[in-house]
Structure formats: structure tokens, C-alpha cells
């Protein structure tokens, strides 16, 4: 379980006042859950993710994973960034193997796993290609394979599909759900897109603009496994409208629709 307790983050500004990015964030993510963080630009979603990843140190507050405080990057966490962040001089396979190389693990034994992951991603024929020979969607799939190579229990994804076109994005969403339901990993997923958040998540965390606070946490009780048809369900629309109204009205004074009220009451 991932626990975030009273997390505050203030960036020292180069000029002028320091910037408060996070203000008293509390969050619990259970093992195997898929949780999305949605919020306006600059609400500190990415900052929160990077603190959980151990890349940043919070100004105050605690993040713990399975009871242990996060003090730095961990093997249990795989990160997927907004861009694919592939090293252009490495082949697809070498990029997927990067974590193994950096951590000086046994490359031979991970080699098979890397090939298998690429096959899951439909990229087995591209293992010896270079990133510039791949489309944006394929590059992002490589970066997901790289995040999965060490079989981390937790996957942190920072707007991973934001740069992709709508069609590719839907395909990637389905693929991600397939991976998630097949492996039981805990996923925290940052996105701008309410639709994407509702479609993928078991819970959606709505954050306010700077300083970032948790405005609301909404359960998504749509049946799994989900297909694109789920987007047409009335419950899907109600949830999306509710999340949008929370985002638009800010701190907690939104007139929530009845269905979503029930959802909140249950949680």
C-alpha cells in the first residue's frame, strides 16, 4: 500500500516568492489499485508523482510504501514519463534493458523477459530498431516495456499518452488496462483527460490548482474488464460530468449530481 500523509512541497523560486506546489496532500493507494490524478496544469500532480517515486524530497510530510518511508528511488517502482524518453543511440531492446544495465543485474536472464515484454507490446520485430524509426505510440510502448522490465509492484505514469493522437491514445489505454489486469500492479496515473481517468481507474483523485490539494476522491464502479463501449454507459457520463464540475468549481462547493453523491457516500 502507498500512503501519502500531509505532504507539502514548496519550490524555492529563482526570483520572487517561493512556489507552493502541494498543500497537505493525503492519499492512500491500495495494492493492485489503478488510481488516476486529474487536475489543472501546474496543480502539482507530476510533483506528487515524483515525490512518490523518490525523485524529489517533499518539504514536509511522509510517503511510505508498505510501511517503509520513501527516501529515494526504488526497484519496486517503474516510471513512465510524459515523453517516451528513449536514448536515441540505443536500440529498442537496449532501451528496454537500460534499467537492468544501470542496476548491474544479470543481463542474460532479463534478456528473455525483455523479448517477452516487447512481444506483449507487439514490438518483437522492432527489437533491433532505433527509436527514430518508430512512431510515437510505438516509442511510448517501448518506454512502458522499460518500466516493466524489473517487474516492479508499482507503476507511476506521468501523462504518458498526452503527446499521442486520439486514436493511438485509445489503443494505448486498452493495452494498459490489459497489462494492469493481467499483472495486478498498483498504478498511479497522472492525466489531463477526465475521460481517460474514468476509463482506466478504480479511483480518480481530483486536485485543485496551485497549491495542489486533494479536492475529491471518486470511486469508479464500472465493471472490469472495460472496453471502449464503457465510455457510452450513462454511469460513465455521470462520473465524467461530476469530475469536471469538481475541477471547475474548485474547493468542494460544487453542486454534485445525485449519482455521484451516492458514489462519494459509499467511499
Amino acid at each position, binding site marked *: 500500500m502507498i500512503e501519502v500523509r500531509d505532504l507539502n512541497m514548496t519550490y524555492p523560486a529563482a526570483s520572487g516568492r517561493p512556489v507552493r506546489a502541494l498543500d497537505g496532500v493525503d492519499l492512500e493507494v491500495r495494492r493492485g489499485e489503478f488510481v488516476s490524478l486529474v487536475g489543472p496544469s501546474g496543480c502539482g500532480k507530476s510533483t506528487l508523482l*515524483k515525490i512518490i*517515486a*523518490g*525523485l524529489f524530497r517533499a518539504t514536509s510530510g511522509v510517503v511510505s510504501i508498505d510501511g517503509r518511508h520513501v527516501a*529515494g*528511488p526504488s*526497484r519496486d*517502482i517503474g*516510471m513512465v*514519463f*510524459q*515523453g517516451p*524518453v528513449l*536514448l*536515441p*543511440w540505443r536500440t529498442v531492446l537496449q532501451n528496454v534493458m*537500460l*534499467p537492468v*544495465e*544501470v*542496476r548491474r543485474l544479470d543481463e542474460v536472464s532479463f534478456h528473455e523477459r525483455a523479448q517477452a515484454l516487447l512481444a506483449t507490446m507487439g514490438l518483437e520485430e522492432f527489437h533491433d530498431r*532505433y*527509436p*527514430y524509426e518508430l512512431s510515437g505510440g510505438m516509442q511510448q510502448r517501448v518506454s512502458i516495456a522499460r518500466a516493466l522490465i524489473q517487474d516492479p509492484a508499482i507503476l507511476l505514469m506521468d501523462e504518458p499518452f498526452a503527446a499521442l493522437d486520439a486514436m493511438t491514445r485509445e489503443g494505448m489505454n486498452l493495452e494498459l488496462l490489459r497489462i494492469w489486469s493481467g499483472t495486478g500492479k498498483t498504478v498511479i496515473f497522472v492525466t489531463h483527460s477526465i475521460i481517460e481517468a474514468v476509463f482506466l481507474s478504480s479511483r480518480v483523485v481530483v486536485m485543485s490548482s496551485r497549491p495542489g490539494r486533494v479536492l475529491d476522491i471518486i470511486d469508479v464502479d464500472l465493471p472490469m474488464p472495460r472496453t471502449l463501449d464503457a465510455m457510452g454507459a450513462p454511469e460513465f457520463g455521470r462520473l465524467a460530468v461530476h469530475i469536471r464540475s469538481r475541477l471547475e468549481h474548485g474547493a468542494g462547493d460544487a453542486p454534485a449530481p445525485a449519482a455521484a453523491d451516492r458514489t462519494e457516500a459509499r467511499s
Partner: protein
Amino acid sequence: MSPARRREAVLSALLGLAVVAVWELVVRAFAVPAYVVPAPTAVIVALGRGLASGVYVTHLAYTLVEALAGFVIGSLIGLMLGAAIARSPGLERVLYPYVVGFQAMPKIAIAPLLIMWLGFGIWSKVAMVAMIAFFPMLVNVITGLRAVDRDSIDLMRSLSASEWQVFRMVRLPYALPYIFAALDIAIVFSLLAAIVAEFVGSQAGMGHLILQMNFSLDVAGVFAVLIILSVVGVALHLVVVKTQRRVVFWGESNDMTGKM
């Protein structure tokens, strides 16, 4: 080659031929003395004579050794100092005023001192070349090592990479296009610096040869040496560009070079 490109190549060749033809005609029509401006035909004759006598070989070898040794030493020092400065902004603030002051100084003015210190032989020239070749590498390495994108560094940190791993696996490869751009500038300057250093005092080399020919009013011979130097300069430039295309095969910023 597209038809337009071919037409431009033909035009370029025609322009060269036209300039040479006008030059030849003017020299003949006005009976310009050969010790002022020799006719192109006289230059070609001098070039042929020089090539046949083998006089260029030893002198060119001498100059090339000076230029290449200085180029390698200067670039290596620039690379190491640049890497150190890129890593530490504190070191940059301490060192940079002196580095800039050193660069602002017209280094050819030190050449007489270098000859006093290191003698008329090869080492005074190597030192001069190294001082000239050093700066482009220093500046570009600092820029290149800092140009790496933030996310790649975050990625490496998320994998608990050591600083050396980040340098070797991410920063240095990202800096390669910048490093090659510096090498391309430095290689041409190195040849220039070797020649100029030879002017100040030397026993051999293409610069030495030019001075000798100047003293004996063999201006056609000087022109012939200039042709050889420019061919060698272009060849060195092409070696750097071809090496870059091979090493930085992923094609980033290949357009940073290609112009001298």
C-alpha cells in the same frame, strides 16, 4: 542529384573556371610581373614541379604532425576541463573569468615566447595549436553536457544511477553533436595555427616553405602551397564530418556542422 542541384554544381564549376580564365587573361594582357601575381598556368607549373620534387611531402608531414598533435591535446584538455566545469557551477564561476581572459588574448602574440620556451622545433607549434584548439571544445562541451533533457536525467535517477553512469550513458552521448561541432571548428583552426606558428620561427613545415618561397620571390610556388593547404583543410574537415555521421548515427543536430 536533382536537375536543379546538377545545374547549380555545373554553375559552380563554371564560376571557378571563369575566375581562373579572367585571372590568366588579366595577367597576360597587362604583363603583371610573376613576383606580384603569377598567372594560373604558372601556378600549375609550380605545383607540378613541387609535387615532382617531393618537397611538399616532408614539409606537409611536419605541419600535419604539429596540427594533429596540437588538435588532439587541445581538444582533450578542453573536453576534460569542460566536463569538470559543466558538472560544477561553482568551479565555472571560479575559472571562467580566466578562461575568457585567456581566450580574449590574441594567442599569436605568445608565439615568440613559446619559441623562446620550447625552441624552434615541433613543440612550440604543438603548444600554439593546442591553445587555439582548446577553446571551441571547452565551450561546446559545457553547452552540450548541459543540453541533456531533464527527463532523461530523471529516468536515470529513478533507476538509482550513479553520477558516472549518468555521464557515460546519457550526458556524454547527448553532447556528442556539440563535441563534433567543436572538432570541426578546431581542425581547421589547427592547420591555421600551425602555419602561423611556423611563420614566427621554424625549421620546416608548409609555413616555413611559404616564407622561403616568399624570400626568393617564388610567388607561383606560394600559390601552389596555398592550394595544397586548402585541399588538406577540406580533407580534414570531411574526415570530421564523416566520422560524426558514423558516430552520431541517430541524426541529431547533424546540421550543426557542415559549415566551416
